[in-house]
């Protein structure tokens, strides 16, 4: 009797483990539990009055997130392929609506306020975009039609529309997130490495020149001669045109000699390279006017906190101080002075990793990183074992999205990446971020559960 029960139990477990990736769910659940704990800590002031509002909200969002997760897990992800346009358009509509009906918080209209809760549509747009791009690339691959440059126009526009809407809020950090997401999915979809390099070259020029000029314009930093020279040339449009001409001539000479040396290289490469550089450079000038000085400063402050010492630079320094002062084992739960005494601003949102490291030290951060790594690697595993190409692309895209968010956030707290206001999935305070991250896991589980089904 007893034996039979055990079999039944084992059977249920085996059956479930075929449908559910327990590693993934377990790592996620641990992260969320940790998050609730840390949000409690971050809201806990040494004045001994605990602001439980954040904590309670995060817990209720986590519970709602589990409902969403179960719903998505049960749903066939092919429905997402079928209704990708609907999802995408709905998210675009939300982005438009938030511009008019959104709540004005910290100088941006990014939030819907529903009763006591706020929702940030840009978080959901990321998932919708991944679904849309996966579907689109799947269709392209079906037609074996990814060679042409023209077929890439559609993914670009699909990405640019939500990006532009988010920039209008304005929330530059979330908007800039879309570029790496697009690049990753294009790479997974086998678009061709040359297209991606071309695109990286273009966006590098377009964004890099304004940022470089901002950096060179910082009086408080000692600049080298090379920096000063390029700043002078790029800062004055006619000089920049002359420099462009010189660069294109150099390209042509290189091409010419390669051909003379009997390399069989199409002139297409020369033209494309030149076009990318030229267009990137031309695009940089309107972008320079469009981006505000403080936005540019914020993006480059991680190079040198002195660029914005009282704004972003302050966050960068204090975040590193929090991480560094934790040492190996940390100061102990609720004992972190940087977080508890308010030296680290918005400590429960974007900089929660610093608070965690301050209180739990290097070891705590390692545990956290390992949990993230489990989620990502299991996600890739799901993408590999997916039943069809759409599933594989969708899972890969979602993993890539989570990866980009995690890396940008961690890099930001450790002073390696620009401060872009990207939250840490599963950990940061914020219902929308938590819901969308859990929805992403729900979709992964849906793909996982249906890997054998035909």
């Amino acid at each position: 009797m007893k034996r039979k029960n055990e079999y039944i139990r084992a059977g249920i477990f085996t059956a479930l483990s075929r449908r559910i990736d327990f590693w993934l769910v377990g790592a996620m659940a641990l992260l969320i539990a940790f998050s609730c704990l840390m949000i409690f800590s971050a809201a806990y002031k040494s004045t001994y009055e605990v602001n439980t509002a954040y904590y309670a909200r995060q817990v209720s969002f986590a519970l709602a997130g589990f409902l969403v997760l179960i719903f998505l897990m049960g749903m066939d992800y092919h429905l997402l392929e079928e209704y990708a346009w609907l999802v995408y358009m709905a998210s675009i509509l939300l982005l438009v609506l938030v511009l008019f009906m959104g709540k004005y918080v910290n100088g941006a209209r990014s939030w819907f306020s529903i009763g006591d809760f706020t929702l940030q549509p840009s978080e959901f747009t990321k998932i919708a975009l991944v679904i849309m791009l996966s579907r689109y690339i799947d269709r392209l691959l079906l037609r074996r039609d990814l060679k042409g440059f023209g077929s890439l126009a559609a993914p670009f526009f699909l990405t640019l529309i939500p990006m532009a809407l988010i920039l209008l809020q304005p929330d530059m950090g979330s908007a800039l997130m879309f570029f790496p997401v697009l690049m990753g999915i294009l790479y997974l979809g086998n678009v061709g490495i040359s297209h991606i390099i071309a695109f990286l070259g273009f966006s590098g020029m377009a964004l890099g020149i304004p940022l470089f000029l901002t950096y060179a314009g910082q009086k408080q930093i000692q600049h080298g001669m090379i920096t000063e020279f390029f700043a002078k040339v790029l800062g004055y449009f006619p000089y920049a045109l002359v420099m462009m001409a010189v660069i294109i001539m150099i390209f042509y000479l290189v091409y010419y000699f390669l051909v003379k040396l009997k390399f069989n290289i199409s002139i297409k490469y020369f033209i494309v390279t030149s076009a990318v550089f030229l267009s990137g450079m031309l695009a940089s000038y309107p972008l320079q006017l469009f981006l505000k000085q403080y936005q540019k400063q914020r993006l480059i402050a991680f190079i040198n906190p002195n660029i914005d010492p009282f704004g972003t630079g302050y966050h960068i320094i204090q975040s590193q101080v929090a991480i560094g002062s934790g040492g190996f084992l940390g100061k102990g739960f609720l004992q972190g002075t940087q977080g508890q005494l308010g030296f680290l601003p918005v400590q429960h949102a974007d900089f929660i990793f610093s608070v965690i490291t301050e209180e739990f030290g290097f070891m705590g951060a390692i545990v956290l990183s390992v949990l993230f790594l489990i989620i990502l690697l299991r996600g890739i595993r799901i993408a590999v074992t997916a039943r069809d190409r759409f599933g594989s692309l969708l899972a890969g895209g979602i993993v890539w999205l989570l990866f980009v968010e995690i890396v940008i956030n961690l890099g930001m707290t450790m002073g390696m990446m620009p401060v872009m206001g990207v939250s840490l999935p599963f950990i940061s305070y914020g219902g929308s971020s938590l819901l969308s991250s859990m929805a992403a896991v729900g979709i992964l589980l849906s793909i996982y559960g249906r890997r054998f089904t035909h």
Partner: protein
Amino acid sequence: MWQNTESFQEKRLHNNLQHLQYFTIAVFVILILRLFFISIIKGSYFQKISEDNRIQIFTLPAPRGIIYDRKGKVLVDNRLSFSVLLSPINLKREILEKTIVRLNGVLESVNDYKPGMTGNVCLAEDVEPEKIFYLSEQKHNFPGMRIQVRPKRHYPYGAFAAHLIGYLGQISKRELEDPVHVGYKKRDIIGKTGLEKIYDRFLRGRDGNEQIEVDVNGKPLRMLSHQDSWMGDHLILTVDKNIQDTCEAVLRGKKGAICVLNPKNGEVLAMVSKPDFDPNIFIENTSPLQYRKLFNDPELPMFNRVIQSQQSPGSVFKIITAISALEEGAVDLETTYNCHGSFLLGRGRRSREFKCWKEGGHGRMEIIDAIAHSCDVYFYQAGLKTGVDSISEYAALFGLSALSGFCMPSEERGLIPSARWKREKTGECWYPGDTVNMSIGQGYVLVTPIQMANLASFVAGRGVLYEPFTVRRIIDTEGNIIRTFRPKVKKRVKLKQQTWDIIQRGMREAVTSGTCRGVNFRNLAVAGKTGTTQNPHGDDHAWFICYAPVEDPQVAMSVYVEHGGHGSSAAVPLARKILENMFNLKEEEIVEIFEIED
């Protein structure tokens, strides 16, 4: 499964996912390396910053030691004052600026705050209590502000003994570099002159500090450590407030100096220089204009005349001339010179006439009468007979042209000329006329009031001089004696007993029947000598030195009145009032007769 199909595209997708996996792992390795660098390798560095963030150190200035007079009366103490500090370390600029604008509305002047300053900045000192009440009530509206109660030096009697006690000021860059001031910090308050300077090490005490945990708005949360400040050690002076008061009173409105010593041990009982200044103005926030006015005043209020004023002593110097003449045997008790109003030096056409101050002359004079009546003609001849070198030798023996040994720096030495000195200085040789001038203390001779007080002390002690000193004891706050200053014999001069007898009799007779009958008391035997410095630029300067009682000297003093006129009319009455007060004498006991000497 689709992976098993031969499709080239799908194989590539599989490969790309593999790439993603490697990429993910590689990036995480980089992140963890960075994490290791920050939290392990640079951990201690960031720990220190984190501590600096949350801990603010406030200095608690120590109250300076109290200065008492010899009878335990408080001469200098401290009062409480409120300061408004700003600790801008962790505050964002906008918050700070708001605080400063708000504070500007409450306090009239918010001094020297510049953006980017760190550490505690004192915004305003000596703020009125009403404003402090308001600020402490509204504390939450002024993040980063802190109110500190600071002890401030207080001179309750204002200018009382200002030159002796000195004044305070912020330590200057030069003083800070001086190895004497090891352990002093920037912005420390330090004694600039007088006893405040000399005994600064004892008086200043030790500043305490408080380590306070603050939040990002600079709001104090709890105290982590507290170290009380230690009050400085107290000084007990030899000065008697009563005597000093009298001296200040008699010199009020005049220019000059009085120095009262105890000839038996060298204690300074009173030391006054007028005009003076109020040291309190250096404590309060005084405008630079006021400072300049004080330092550029033609009346020289900052000038301590007791040790810095150099003038010819006039007839007071006759004591030295008499001593050298007696010792060298140039004159003795029986030597007489006839004074008929003038003395002719040299013969024939080149002769020069030196007048006695008394037009009709004194008649036949012996040495005691000559001292008592200050007969110039007698001393012209006695001096000529003794010679310049002997006179300067004896002057040096009595501490003229040398530092008095008094603790204050910036003391002047005065000058006693000699033949050699004149040759080196002017290139001219020494004429007998110079000796004539010198023997009555005119010409090149320069002395300071404290040297004259020492001279009186010398005569009173019959050749024993104690070093003048002003601090008897240094005690700490619990009353333990840190240091006791004992009388120190500075000089002993061996002269014939007869010489001392003659000088003392001469000075005594000057009081009873001579030039300084103004101090002739019935119940107190005073011995003295007046002097008048001829001043071609204005009124003469008056001198008087005396000691009393003659049998058992307890006090020796010198009175110097700049542009006062004759010694007997300008200086003696001041000494009279001082002695009256010291020995509780009544006015009617004074025989009021003036004899004007020149």
